[in-house]
């Protein structure tokens, strides 16, 4: 029932907003069509403005992954993290999640296949992926769009939030499903 409601929301929300906002605007006597086109023009400019910072971040992260640093770090951390409830198969998620959304979903798919979706590792990987974001990508896009190059506390705060999300995932999955 609860699940049905949530699924309905995720299907209906976008079409309803796409149709509802212009409809409401029309009743408020807004010149909907020219206003929409005017706003949409901005979308292209933003996408172009985001390219340079995104190139910088994506190249650095691509190099880091190709260099084997992630595997090295995983091997180094595995003995410690497996003790606090993060199996070796889920550890790559912790390392890759802030860097690449695609890679993180790849880790989830991998764990689901090898250990099953209803296993502790499968659930933990799912929750970790669902509760955090691709930090470096988000920062590069948002700050890049407005030309901010000094991020100040944004990066450490975002990474600390990721860390808290991972820790809470372990606790939540253990508490709700058992180890």
């Amino acid at each position, binding site marked *: 029932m609860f699940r049905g409601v949530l699924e309905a929301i995720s299907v209906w929300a976008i079409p309803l907003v796409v149709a509802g906002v212009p409809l409401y605007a029309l009743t408020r006597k807004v010149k909907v069509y020219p206003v929409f086109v005017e706003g949409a023009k901005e979308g292209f400019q933003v996408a172009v403005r985001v390219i340079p910072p995104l190139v910088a971040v994506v190249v650095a992260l691509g190099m880091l992954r190709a260099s084997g640093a992630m595997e090295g770090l995983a091997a180094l951390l595995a003995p410690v993290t497996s003790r606090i409830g993060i199996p070796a198969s889920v550890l790559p998620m912790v390392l890759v999640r802030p860097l690449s959304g695609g890679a993180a979903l790849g880790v989830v798919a991998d764990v689901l296949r090898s250990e099953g979706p209803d296993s502790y590792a499968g659930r933990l990987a*799912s929750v970790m992926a669902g509760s955090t974001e691709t930090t470096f990508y988000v920062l590069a896009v948002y700050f890049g769009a407005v030309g901010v190059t000094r991020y100040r*506390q944004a990066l450490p705060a*975002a990474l600390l939030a990721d860390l808290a999300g991972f820790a*809470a995932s372990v606790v939540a999955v253990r508490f709700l499903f058992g180890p």
Partner: protein
Amino acid sequence: MSVIWVLLLVASVVVAAVTGRMVALPGAIAESAGRAVSLSLGLVGILALWMGLMKVAEESGIVRSLGRLARPVLRRLFPSVPADSPAMGAMTMNIAANMLGLGNAATPFGIKAMEELERVNPDPGTATDAQALFCALNTASIQLIPASVIALRAAAGARQPADILGATLLASTCATIAAIASAWALRRLFRSSPPQGPPRV
């Protein structure tokens, strides 16, 4: 960011030298640079659509009423942002879209919010406390529906693909609290050149 960026680049080269993977680097560099462009160009259509809708919502007063609705919470989180700033509405729509797992719609709202925040930035180019907190919030947003993960679990044959909803809500709430707390706690460590907020009279 300069230091972190150089650190990432140098660390990759050093690690590649140690692990003997230097061969893979040139390919990775070229491939990533290309992917960055296709990532941003891939955003064009969806950005144009939502930026257009955002403008319609703005003109018809929806953004302002949404901002007013969320003002009690947002005013406390972003004390330096004028209460009547269009940033408030954009941030509300961004947070709502994020919670529903509508990442594609959330990004344009977020960019709009960042633009409005940049407009009141006394030192353009350097993040304000509000921008830093807003971005940190976006990297850890409260998730009601992690749609892509649920789809993956369903494809893998989970008995109840969505049974991780509760745990995800819990974990992402913790991440959000951590984002707010650490952005607030760290703000003095990263000085902004001119004093922030409206000048005191």
